[in-house]
């Protein structure tokens, strides 16, 4: 059922930290099989920043929850490989995986209010994360937690550590979550929509913080978002996902200045960009995301694609690299893609 994918070219950097190969995650539901992730591959190198962009239902979150081992395998069928430092996390026993989770891979979630336990002090929640993987006393753990809180820019961290999540502001909570995720100096930080629940002004702060910390902790970062605008400044590479598959993959410049997939074009057209003059209205992509149970045949995007051809309705396009590592899954010819981008997308977006 899965098909051979291009592996996603090995990026610059110091060797792949995380390699996802042909990952698919299918959930059995009473209504049918939900193909949340259907054949996705990509690589993250040490120190890289990967942006994963897509609408809700694109499979972006499920992919990384599966990487972390947070998907309940009783209800999902997972196939493919997830190699972290060369070891397949999918076949690893949970006891081992637990030691990687939180320690070598940290994850930050979307809504910090609900993601922190309301009944424990923030400090002790961080201490708990630390003591799960290191043999330190509570006192030492607390000292470390306070230090971390300071690093993420929370003022008076010693007081704040003794407070409860509801006593923090939204932005501060997210900082605390980031602190918790980085507490053990992980090699990979996965941030799933870290700014979506926050004010616009705070969003920028948090993203900058992540950048800064990435440098400081020397970690790779995966930034999951539905907002192409967010990844613009902060990501080296971008993976655009649609209906459980990768639609396009490339560097930031590749995507912003020469996208090759109609979906990406749609996304670009629907955001406002400061570096372009404001033209008429934003143009949303017409149609709605598809059901993951009844995925349209052929190219999943074809019902919404302005450039749909007959072949799109029957044959699933493969993710094929055009230049370098810039790949797209679309039946349009390269010339066509470039032409359309230049003539229609670049002007209007």
């Amino acid at each position, binding site marked *: 059922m899965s098909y051979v994918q291009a592996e996603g070219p090995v990026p610059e950097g110091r060797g792949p930290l995380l390699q996802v190969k042909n990952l698919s995650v299918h959930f059995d539901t009473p209504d049918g099989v939900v193909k949340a992730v259907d054949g996705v591959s990509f690589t993250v190198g040490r120190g890289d920043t990967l942006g994963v962009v897509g609408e809700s239902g694109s499979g972006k979150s499920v992919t990384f929850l599966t990487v972390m081992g947070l998907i309940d395998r009783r209800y999902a069928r997972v196939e493919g490989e997830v190699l972290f430092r060369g070891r397949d996390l999918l076949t690893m026993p949970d006891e081992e995986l637990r030691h990687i989770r939180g320690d070598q891979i940290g994850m930050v979630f979307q809504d910090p209010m609900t993601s922190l336990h309301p009944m424990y002090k923030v400090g002790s929640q961080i201490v708990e994360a630390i003591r799960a993987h290191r043999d330190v006393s509570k006192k030492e753990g607390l000292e470390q937690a306070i230090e971390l809180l300071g690093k993420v820019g929370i003022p008076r961290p010693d007081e704040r550590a003794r407070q*409860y999540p509801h006593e923090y502001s939204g932005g501060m909570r997210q900082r605390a979550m980031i602190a918790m995720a980085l507490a053990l100096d992980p090699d990979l930080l996965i941030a799933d929509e870290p700014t979506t629940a926050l004010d616009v002004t705070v969003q920028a702060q948090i993203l900058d913080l992540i950048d800064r910390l990435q440098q400081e902790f020397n970690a790779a970062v995966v930034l999951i978002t539905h907002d192409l605008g967010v990844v613009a400044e902060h990501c080296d590479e971008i993976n655009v996902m649609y209906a459980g598959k990768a639609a396009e993959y490339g560097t930031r410049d590749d995507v912003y200045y020469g996208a090759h997939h109609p979906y990406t074009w749609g996304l670009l057209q629907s955001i406002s960009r400061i570096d372009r003059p404001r033209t008429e209205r934003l143009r949303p992509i017409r149609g709605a995301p598809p059901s993951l149970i009844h995925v349209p045949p052929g190219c999943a995007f074809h019902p919404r694609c302005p450039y749909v051809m007959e072949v799109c309705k029957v044959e699933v396009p493969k993710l094929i690299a055009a230049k370098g590592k810039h790949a797209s899954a679309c039946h349009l010819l390269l010339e066509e893609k470039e032409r359309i981008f230049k003539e229609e997308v670049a002007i209007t977006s």
Partner: protein
Amino acid sequence: MTRYIIRRLLWVGLVVVLIVFLAYVIFFLMPPVDPARAFAGKRPTPEVLETLREQFGLDRPFYVQFGLFVKRLVIGDEYGWPGFGFSYATRSPVREELFQRALVTIQLSLGAAVVWLLMGIPIGILSAIKRRTFVDRFAMGFALFGVSAPVFWLGLMFLYIFWQKLGIAAGTGYVPFGENPLTWLNHMIMPWVVLALLFAAFYARMVRGNLIETMGEDYIRTARAKGLSERRVIVRHGLRASLTPVVTMFGLDVGTLLGGAIITETVFNMPGLGTYVVRSVFQGDLPATLGVVVLGALAVSVMNLIVDIVYAYLDPRVRYA
């Protein structure tokens, strides 16, 4: 915090007084029976009625009686503190019998509470963890039974099976702990279990529901993402949040039971507040009825207060500044 508690305690006092007032109103406005007449025998003469009215304090208007009652309650009367007056039916101070019976009811309630916590919560947790397996379905089936079976039927069935037919359990009745601890226990087990079954079933369902819901919360996902063991996730993160409402319910349930578990006490012939109040109401024994009303109101109010305090301690989001 201390000021808060004092303020709440004053409210408790006010609530109790109000409830007693209501009881007085009901007692005087509702029944067509003259309490003195009920104790005056087959052919009462005016002198007998006059004497009884005087000795029962019924010759005063009811607000005067009420005022005297509250005053005696607070200051005490010739029988001790607090003053509950004397029983029309037994012609003895209400206080001594009231406290004796309160002790029995406390033993019954607290024992049952322990039993239902020990039964209900583990079953609920197990059910939640092993959701939709046979264990879960069996446990919820048991819960449905426990919630549906009427207490008096359960009690009678238990007596019939374990005492009458199998002869392994002690029958009805109460033996004080001081007299013989093992016999005391023997007599308490069935009432405890019967009384606890309903609550255990209810709590099992509640715990199960709460825990399942809690385990779907985002912070559980975070806890797992931190790499914690599943056991720690369930106990420290899941249970902590899902048991908080259970604590509230527990306090209120115990408070209500402390006012007397009428049916269980009657079926098992336990000399507690439940049987006492039934008898007193039927006989028209106002002081005895009021005694139980006061204790019951007090128990519920105080437990309410305790529950609020404990809840604030457990859930920092609701703490008062």
